Structures are given as structure tokens and as C-alpha cells.
């Protein structure tokens, strides 16, 4: 039985997690860093478009300001974002981008040598800093390289799956991990734990997310009684390639690409006459689905075209080489010559573990940041370019806050609690892995995808959501009778996928219940039976707590500082 101890534990190797590790190590804190895949394999690397910061580098956006960025974010969030947190994020944005540039991130450049910025959806200004269309990749590698310079403070546990928390006296005192190499459970003790486990896109079948982006990271604290917030708000990215649902960055539209329907028209003129293609994502996704629903999809089918051709070969090769590569690889289409068939796909989990703007949850010693957390800076709809920013700002803040809390305490002593929890988790997993039923867990996952893709989608209504809820609960009971997983301890992915499917089912239920309860349309959550926003009843967050009988929902107020809700037009 192996027990490790560090002052601080960070779970997750993506941009937020690595940022937290870096910032904590800069304080000289002894960090245990846990990631289920090697850090640079994380989904942050798939982010393409860029990171928002009011640097004012673009000649057309010199008078951009932190306030304007904050206002755009508040408006984009459909007034559900906490305005104090948003102000913190936009205020820290310029210095964080400069920090990352100095750490070596190869941003694209303007002629005067400053970091290049381009327009993005829902932003009034060209404020999205980018490195061609591989910004996430560059940022992730940059913060990882920074980690390499500070290795003496950091112990990396890669290919360790966190499967539970060590809770005692109402505090989080560490985590229980599943070591992929040995198949054994190990306990890691720490005075504080930061979760940065990413989004839950794999609850859906049509998603731009990686296979690793499952709900497990959100579910572990949720199972231990830490509430989750606003899970019903799931962003659908307007443009993913058909079939594989790989992301086509919003940067393409930021650079001037068109969305075209079967009649060959730029249909966005009907929905957002001023912003056109660079309206916020919720609006563009709904517009595409409306076009498709009204029979104006290409050849009456369920996709539209993203047209880059007028940008010219040079601009495409220079600014959007990554998406060209994806089109060539997966569709056999060269966007210089042909239009790209696209449709919306599940993309970003606005909801997550309920934390404040210091990334603290209600349980002392437990922090969360990045996509798995809900601060909330994105409210009901996230703006493109704000997710990388959230990772950097709140990842950094979590590292600093938690780091300062534990600094100098030394690694915790081996506690009997950890051993006890470890044994309990071993029994729980043993039960999960030896159910001996006849159901195939992967087929259950496929059915869950089908339900979420059809009934908990961009357009929702009571009847659909209710039938989805019944179906999910039915799947949960069938999951009790799954076949036993394959034996073997070394790199047995059958075990980890099974656990992730279990988590996906639980969070799917929370999403559906939240969507059913919220009788209004706000941001990404659109109820056809309640098509308008209802600030009086619903300008509040949804909180969900785990109970044996299912999620228990309640409310939490939204923080408003400068901006009163107004009608949202683009």
C-alpha cells in the first residue's frame, strides 16, 4: 500500500493545472502533480483560436480596455456571469498574456513586433491574442516547459487516475489514485488539493472534446458532497467538421470566413445583422440549427458550409494552417478550394465545481480551476478566447492562493484516515469491476450519447427533457448490471473507461434536471417552451448536490457590480 505526501496536490495536466503547479512552485511549495495522461497530451492543446486580453495591439482596437472586455463577457454570459469574478479575469488578462509570452509562447506578431490580436465572437474589439491557430498547443507547451525549470519542487504522477478524495473533519486532505502502471490504488496526502480536470464534453456523442474530457473530474468532488453549479449550460460550438466533430476555430470567422446555407446566402444577416458570423456562439449555433430545421441545410441535410475561400491561400496558410491540415486529413478537403461542411457540437462545460473567485470551494482545502470549475465567469454562454484566459488566470490564482495557504507546512504526516479511505475505495472499485452482469458499459455510453445528442441539445423542451431524464435513469439502473471488467492490472483501460462512463451518467442526470428546472432561455440554454429570458425568476445560479436518490437542486445569487441586465442584441 503506497502513501505519498506533499504540501499541495494539483490534479490535472492541462493549462489550468499546469499554471497552478507553476505558480505554486514559484512560491517554493512542494507540489504533487497528478494527471491521468502525460500533461502535454491534455485537451487544452486542442484550443485553436486564441486568448483574450485587452492589450490594444491591433491598430483597429487601440482604445480597447479592461472594462470593455468585462462588459462584452458579462453580455456574452447573458448576465449570469459573476461580475466581480469577470472583472478580476479581464483585469489580470493583459499581464497574464505578457507573462506567458515571456515564458516563451510563440504568439503570432503584428508588424510592430507586438502580440497579434484578431476579432472573435461576441467581442466588440479585436482582442484575441493568437499563435496561428494552435494557441492552446503553444500555451500548453510553454507552461509545461516552465514546469521543467522548476522540477525540484514538483513530483509528477502521470497516468494516475484520481478516483476519490480523502475527506476528514470537513476538510479535503488528499486524493486516492489509480496507478495505471500497477493497477493498484495509492493515496496522496496534501494540505490542499486543486482540481483542474477539464470539461465533460464526452457526455455527448457529437462533441469537439477529446476522449479524456469526461465528467469524472467533476463527479469525484460531487460524489463527496461538494456542489456543482450551472451544469445545464453546455456550450455548442457552431463549427465542427461533420462526422468527426473536430473543431473548426472561431478564429476562421474572426479572420472573415462566411457561414453559407443551401441557398448560398450568408444567413447570419437574419440573426445578427451587425456582428454577422462573429456573433456569440450560442446565437450562431441556434442560427445554424434553425437553418437546418427549416430545410436550408446543404442539400436539405444537417450541416451548413464554412467558407474560407475568399480569404486566399496565403492568409489561410499563415493564420489557419491547423484547420486546413484537419480538413485535409479527415475530410480530404482543401479549404483553399472548397467549403467545409460544419455543424454545431458540444464544446464547453460552462458549469462545474462551485468555487469563488479565489477558486475555493465550500470545503476547506479543496480548490478547483479551469473548465471543471464554475467561478462563474462564463455564465450562460462563454465567449471564444475566454476559456484559455480562464485557465491561465484562475489556474494561476488557485496555485497562488492554495500555495500561500500551505507554504512552509511541510508534507502532512501519514494518517490512518488515508489508509481507511484507500481500503474503502478498493472495496467500492472491486464492486464496480465485478458486477458480473450482461450489459456492455460501452453500449450504455453509446445510448447516453444518443439521448444527449437528440434531447439535451441546443433547443430543449419539457417533453424532450423529461423523456431524456427517464432514459438516463434507466441507463443508470442498467449500469448496475454491467459485465465484469477484464482482469489485469497493467494499463487496463477497461477499468478507467468504465469509471468514466459511470461519472458521465451521473452528470448527464444533473444537466438534464437543471435544464428541466430552468424555465427560461438564457445563453446556451434555450427552451422552446420558454423562449425568453426571465431575470425575475431565473437570474441565479443552479446548485446541485449529490444524494443517494439523485441530485438535489437549489439556487445561488449572481454577483452584479456595474452592469444591470439588459436586452442582448448583436
Amino acid at each position, binding site marked *: 500500500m503506497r502513501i505519498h505526501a506533499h504540501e499541495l496536490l494539483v490534479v490535472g495536466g492541462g493549462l489550468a493545472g499546469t499554471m497552478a503547479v507553476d505558480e505554486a512552485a514559484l512560491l517554493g511549495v512542494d507540489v504533487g502533480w497528478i494527471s491521468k495522461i502525460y500533461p502535454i497530451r491534455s485537451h487544452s*492543446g486542442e484550443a485553436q483560436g486564441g486568448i483574450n486580453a485587452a492589450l490594444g495591439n491591433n491598430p483597429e482596437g487601440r482604445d480597447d480596455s479592461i472594462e470593455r472586455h468585462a462588459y462584452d463577457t458579462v453580455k456574452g454570459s447573458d448576465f449570469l456571469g459573476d461580475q466581480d469574478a469577470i472583472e478580476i479575469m479581464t483585469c489580470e488578462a493583459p*499581464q497574464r498574456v505578457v507573462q506567458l509570452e515571456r515564458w516563451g509562447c510563440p504568439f503570432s506578431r503584428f508588424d510592430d513586433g507586438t502580440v497579434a490580436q484578431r476579432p472573435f465572437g461576441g467581442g466588440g474589439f479585436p482582442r484575441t491574442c493568437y499563435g496561428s491557430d494552435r494557441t492552446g498547443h503553444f500555451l500548453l507547451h510553454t507552461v509545461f*516547459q516552465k514546469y521543467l525549470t522548476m522540477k525540484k519542487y514538483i513530483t509528477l504522477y502521470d497516468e494516475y487516475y484520481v478516483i476519490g478524495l480523502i475527506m476528514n473533519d470537513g476538510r479535503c486532505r488528499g486524493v486516492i489514485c489509480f496507478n495505471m502502471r500497477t493497477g493498484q490504488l495509492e493515496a496522496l496526502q496534501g494540505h490542499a488539493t486543486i482540481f483542474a480536470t477539464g470539461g465533460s464534453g464526452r457526455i455527448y456523442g457529437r462533441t469537439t472534446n*477529446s476522449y479524456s474530457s469526461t465528467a469524472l473530474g467533476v463527479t469525484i468532488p460531487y460524489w463527496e458532497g461538494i456542489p456543482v453549479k450551472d451544469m445545464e449550460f453546455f456550450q455548442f460550438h457552431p463549427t465542427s467538421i461533420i462526422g*468527426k466533430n473536430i473543431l473548426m476555430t472561431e478564429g476562421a470567422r474572426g479572420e472573415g470566413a462566411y457561414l453559407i446555407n443551401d441557398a448560398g446566402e450568408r444567413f447570419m444577416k437574419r440573426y445578427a445583422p451587425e456582428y454577422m458570423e462573429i456573433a456569440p456562439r450560442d446565437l450562431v449555433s441556434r442560427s445554424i440549427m434553425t437553418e437546418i430545421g427549416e430545410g436550408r441545410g446543404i442539400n436539405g441535410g444537417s450541416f451548413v458550409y464554412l467558407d474560407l475561400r475568399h480569404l486566399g491561400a496565403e492568409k489561410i496558410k499563415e493564420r489557419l494552417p491547423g484547420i486546413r491540415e484537419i480538413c485535409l486529413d479527415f475530410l480530404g478537403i482543401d479549404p483553399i478550394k472548397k467549403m467545409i461542411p460544419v455543424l454545431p457540437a458540444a464544446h464547453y462545460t460552462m458549469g462545474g465545481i462551485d468555487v469563488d473567485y479565489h477558486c475555493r470551494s465550500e470545503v476547506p482545502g479543496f480548490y478547483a480551476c479551469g473548465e471543471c470549475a464554475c467561478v462563474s465567469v462564463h455564465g450562460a454562454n462563454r465567449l471564444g478566447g475566454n476559456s484559455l484566459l480562464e485557465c491561465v488566470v484562475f489556474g494561476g490564482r488557485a496555485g497562488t492562493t492554495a500555495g500561500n495557504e500551505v507554504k512552509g507546512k511541510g508534507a502532512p504526516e501519514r494518517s490512518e484516515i488515508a489508509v481507511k479511505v484507500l481500503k474503502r475505495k478498493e472495496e467500492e472499485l472491486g464492486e464496480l469491476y465485478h458486477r458480473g452482469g450482461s450489459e456492455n458499459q460501452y453500449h450504455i455510453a453509446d445510448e447516453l450519447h444518443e439521448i444527449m445528442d437528440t434531447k439535451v441539445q441546443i433547443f430543449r423542451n419539457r417533453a424532450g427533457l423529461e423523456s431524456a431524464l427517464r432514459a438516463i435513469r434507466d441507463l443508470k439502473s442498467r449500469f448496475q448490471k454491467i459485465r465484469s471488467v477484464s482482469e489485469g492490472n497493467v*494499463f487496463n*483501460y477497461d477499468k478507467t473507461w468504465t469509471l468514466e462512463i459511470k461519472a458521465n451518467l451521473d452528470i448527464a442526470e444533473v444537466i438534464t434536471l437543471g435544464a428541466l428546472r430552468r424555465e427560461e432561455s438564457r445563453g446556451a440554454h434555450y427552451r422552446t417552451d420558454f423562449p425568453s429570458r426571465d431575470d425575475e425568476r431565473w437570474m441565479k445560479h443552479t446548485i446541485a448536490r449529490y444524494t443517494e436518490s439523485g441530485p438535489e437542486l437549489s439556487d445561488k445569487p449572481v454577483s452584479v457590480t456595474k452592469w444591470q441586465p439588459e436586452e442582448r442584441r448583436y
Partner: protein
Amino acid sequence: MAAGGAEILMVTFRVYRYNPEENRDPYYDEYAVPVDPSTTVLEGLFYILENIDSTLSWRCSCRAAVCGSCGMKINGKYGLACRTLVKNLKGDLVILEPLAHLPVIKDLVVDMTDFYEKYEVIEPYLMPKELPGDREFRQSPQERKELDGLVECILCGSCYAACTMCHWDSDFPGPFAILAADARLRDGRDREGRERLLSLISESGIWRCHTELRCTDVCPKKLSPTEAINHLKREAVIYPFFSSKSRELKRREKQLKGDETASPEKSMNRRDFITLVLIGFISLATVVFAGLFSFPLLRRGMRGWKRGWVAAGPVPAVGIGKPVEIAYSRKKWEGGKLSSYPQKAYLVKGESGDLYAIDPTCTHLGCMCFWDDSIRMFMCPCHGGAFDVNGRVVLGPPPRPLRRLEVRIADGKLYLRNEEEEGVS
């Protein structure tokens, strides 16, 4: 996963299997997998896991050729499973094997520890120059363009597995690591610049590459590590002459020894050096030419100890630790007649006052080294090899120290002898 659409074909996936928990050698399993024209190898693997054999292990994450997890050997060629469409493999057999040069843990999962360590060793992070106030570094779009084709690497290991040199030399960092080093070398924001080459110009560094282009062939991101390696080779040749770091190191060493004559700034550039060598050769040739005519006379006169020794002119003044270039000629019987070759050597006075000469022929590939007084080393202009004043290897690919020549002074003249050569006199 592979379902849907009309044109479904059955394809055989033959997959490398190894389980350390079984007492069994590696073997192959075959699975029948339905594929349509859009099915990727990765999706085929998921079909097997979900429907046929849940014990199969492989790494994956992004499925969009960005994360670099699913590098493996696919029908003999290294690449990413997610990016490879089954239909493009042409034929109904897909053979999947793990990455080479890394120990297999289970099935297609390999131990990447060595790989990541090699990435770390080349110090891929930016070592920034003095920070520009509270803003970002200024870098022109042209300077940024220099980094294109270098910073996109996803560390998937395909090039590492494909490189034959990674097989032969476990110290060779591998194409991906050198690519990352080149990215920093070309980055104007990095203060180390060419100094980064110091760790790469050893025998197991860039010179290990034999330009087989296998890395470039397999790279799923269409990058060219070969180009990066060749760029570094060019840099390595120019580098030592200007190396501020090695100069600085030597200067400090000198100061420690209390040598007053340390002159940190003096250095010779390449053109000056070539001019000097040319002038040297021309004057040398003249001397030798004149000497040739008088040779028969000389030959008759050589007796006693002079046999096997070559005259090298008057004895020059030489300070301790300050080698002086001397010219002499070596003669060889060729095609029935005696030919003469101009040679150079360095006369060195050791710390105890002993006198010896050094043959500056580089022991790597025979290029002519020269003494660079500013860094106090014998430098080879071809591959960046460097030797100290005693001829011992300091840097670079040379396998042996420089050859020493025996020295003797008689009648106010200097004589050299090379024991390995047949006595020509």
C-alpha cells in the same frame, strides 16, 4: 463507432499483444473490424475494445492529431492512429505495433520515460534575455516566421521510433529533441542562442544524424527535424569561433590562474583566419619550392640522429601556454619520385618549460585545426571540435587527442619527428 453509411467493409486488425502479467512472449491477435471510408485506425481500436476484446491497451486522447498520444507503427510506418484513415492503408489488413526504441509496457503502450528525459535535456524552455519593461518582447513577424515548422511538434514519438540512429546510439537525443533545440536557437528572445549547441555537438549529438530523412518522412505534422539538424550542423561549424560563453569561461579560468595576459575581447573572425592561412600557405609553398631544388644536396648530408627528423626552420620565441604556428614540409615517395607537402604544426611550451609540437590534423575527419588565442583552444573548422593546449578533446566529435610531435633543437634550428611515419629524410 464504425457503423453508419453504406460502404461497410470488414478489415482485419492484426495487433501486437504483450502483457507483462502473463508468462508469455509477445504475440499478435487478429480482429475483424467493420470500417467505412471515414473510419480511422483509432476508431477501429475502440471498436475492438468495446465489442470484441476489452483487454487491449493503447494510449489516446484528442483524436485530432494534436495531443500526440496515439503514435504507433501502422502497416510498417510510424504515425498517429487517429489521423490514419483505414481506407488510405489500401488493403484489408491493418498491422499495429508499438513505437520502437522504447520499452513496451503492455500491448501498444510504451514507456516514454527516456523520450521525455531527452526532451528535458535539451532545455526546451525559453531562457529570456533582459525583460522589456512590463510589456511583451518585441518580435517581428519575420523573426516569428523563423519558428514555423519547429514549434508545432506534438512529441508523438513517431520520428524517434523511425530514426535508426536512436536505435544505435541511446545517447542520441532524437530528431524531436533537436527540433525543439533549434526552435530556441532561432528564437531571438532567448539569451543562450548558439550556446545551446554546447550540449549537442558531441559525437552523440547532431553529428550522429546521417540524414536518412526517416523522421521527416513519418512526421504527422509534416515537420522536418532533418532540416533542423542540418541547420544546427551549420551553426555548430560557425559557432565556436564566436562563442562568447566559451570565451568567457576561458577568461575566468585564466583570471583564476592569475594570468595577466588575459585578453577577453580579441578574437579572429573566419575571413581573417582564412586569409591568414592562405598567406601562410603561399609563403610556405615558396619556401618548400626552393627547398625542393636543394633537396638532393640535403639528403646526401643527412646522417646520424637527423635520420627521420624534419627541419622546421629557426626556433621561434614561444611563451608558456602560447602555441606558435610553424611550417615544415613532409616528403613522400610517390610514383617513383619524391614529393613534398607543406605542413603546419604548433610549437608549445608546457608549464614545466618542456617543448613539444602538436599536429593540428583533427582526429575526427582530418580537417586542419587552428589555435584560437581568444578562447585558448585548437578549433576544428569542420565540425566544431575543440582541443585544449595539450591537444586533449574539449568539445565536439573528435575521438582522440591531437597527435604530438617530438621536438629537437640543433644548430639553432628546429627539428620535428613523427614516429608513426616512415623515416623520410
